[in-house]
């Protein structure tokens, strides 16, 4: 993390979950994009998707940037019930023509490099045409499908599926204690960082 902080900065950054820094989306495409994100949040009340469209001049690694952004970004329009560890960040470098996905700890049991690459591949034709709205809509839809599959698996065997992602089921007593302490339910150990998002 410190390496990424050295490159991009160690301070938290305040962002909207949809950021078109490259300015590639037309005004009329912003509303459909917002609906894509809202629909996702309605289906997955613990999760959120953030989009960052940038035009980087000399970005060495989109992976590294996504990793850094999801750890440092404070999304002002995301509920407290959805911490960054439950987030999925889609970063598109419209200059270098790269797109990448980074996801939080809570999603480790359900997503991996292959599944996210597969989702990006589904949007590849639209990315090629510069139709970013359609491309991101396709990618999000594919991610939804993957998450639903993961949800079905974890329902049957929570412990082993969570363990595959390096996670453990949170104990109820501990959860209550955390709620009493003022932390959000459903989150992970790192709820203290939420304040940084603000």
């Amino acid at each position, binding site marked *: 993390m410190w390496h990424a902080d050295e490159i991009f900065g160690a301070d938290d950054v305040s962002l909207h979950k949809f950021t078109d820094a490259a300015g590639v989306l037309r005004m009329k495409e912003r509303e459909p994009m917002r609906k894509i994100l809202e629909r996702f949040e309605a289906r997955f009340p613990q999760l959120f998707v953030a989009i960052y469209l940038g035009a980087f001049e000399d970005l060495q690694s989109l992976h590294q940037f996504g990793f850094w952004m999801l750890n440092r970004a404070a999304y002002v329009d995301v509920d407290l019930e959805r911490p960054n560890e439950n987030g999925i*960040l889609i970063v598109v470098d419209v200059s270098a023509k790269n797109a990448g996905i980074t996801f939080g700890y809570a999603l480790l049991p359900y997503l991996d490099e292959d599944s996210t690459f597969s989702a990006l591949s589904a949007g590849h034709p639209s990315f090629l045409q510069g139709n970013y709205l359609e491309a991101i809509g396709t990618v999000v839809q594919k991610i939804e499908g993957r998450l639903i599959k993961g949800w079905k698996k974890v329902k049957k065997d929570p412990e082993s599926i969570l363990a595959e992602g390096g996670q453990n089921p949170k104990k109820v007593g501990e959860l209550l204690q955390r709620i009493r302490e003022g932390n959000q339910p459903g989150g992970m150990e790192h709820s203290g960082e939420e304040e940084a998002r603000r």
Partner: protein
Amino acid sequence: MRFCLPVFLSASLLCGEEPDLPLPTWESDELEALESGDYVPGSSLLGKIARELMASNNDEPIELDPAVRDLREPEPVEWSRVIGDEFLSAYFYEPSQGFLNDPQKLLTTQEYRDREGFLNYHARDTDIDLYVYLFDALQEIPETESLGSVVRSQFDQEKPVAVVFYFLGMPEKSQLVFSDRVVESVNQAERDKVIRMAVEEALEKSEPSSQLESFSIQLSIRLYWLEKVVARGGGDLASRKPLILPRVRIFEAEEKGVWDRLQEKPGLFYAVVVALVIVPAAGLGFMGRWIAERKRVYVFPDAEGTPLLDAPYAAGVGGVISFSSATTPPSSQKSEVPDYLQKM
């Protein structure tokens, strides 16, 4: 030896060695007469007058003998429309000797045997016996007689019988009457259809005996189906018991629809019922499930883990794709992940 000769001849022909066939030769006296002009080849075919004219070298036209010239053309014989008295009893007063009644011998012996054989076969195969009375084309039934009276007087009304008056060469004049047993079981429309279709079939042919053949075959077919119609209505023409179903129900049976036919085949019937019920139900089920899935909310179990790489929220390594080339497939544009971002 019997097979050797054709083989030898065939072989000779194939080899082009035709046997030397002798040409006809003149007799010496005939040859002399021919050369002297006394003999004209083919003159034996000419009549006496023509030979004399030819011998006299006279080119004048031949005058016909007035007796020959005034010969009248024979007047066409008008066929009698009246049935000879000697045949009336065979037609109207005596029971038919067989299924084909032809006292005037209008059919040749062979035609008669063929038609009678067919009617016998029909009688063996079906319940409604078919009797055919043959008349000449222009003959007319005496006013005092009728087909109905023949059927009533000569046939058992309790048996299923069809009697036809057939006019050889004019099938459209044909008449058909059923015994009471059939009349009670089959409605008028269906009975009329039998004779109508047989006549139509007969008129397809031009030769009278062929017309009779087509007529009797079609009539036999229609009678067979008539039995089927009665059987579907629960009746049995062969039995002497009264029919179970009243005529209204028979009519309904005749008008059976696709549904009734399906019910007669249980396997197909249940398959159709299942398809009609299950397919829409499955369609509705899938649609309902699709709607429910769209509105479904997915809540994952709460979990906790150890932070990696000193990163507070995310160390998940996702995919990166390049879309700089339209010709290179996505799998070839997969960016490598730096080692330090791999999950530990």
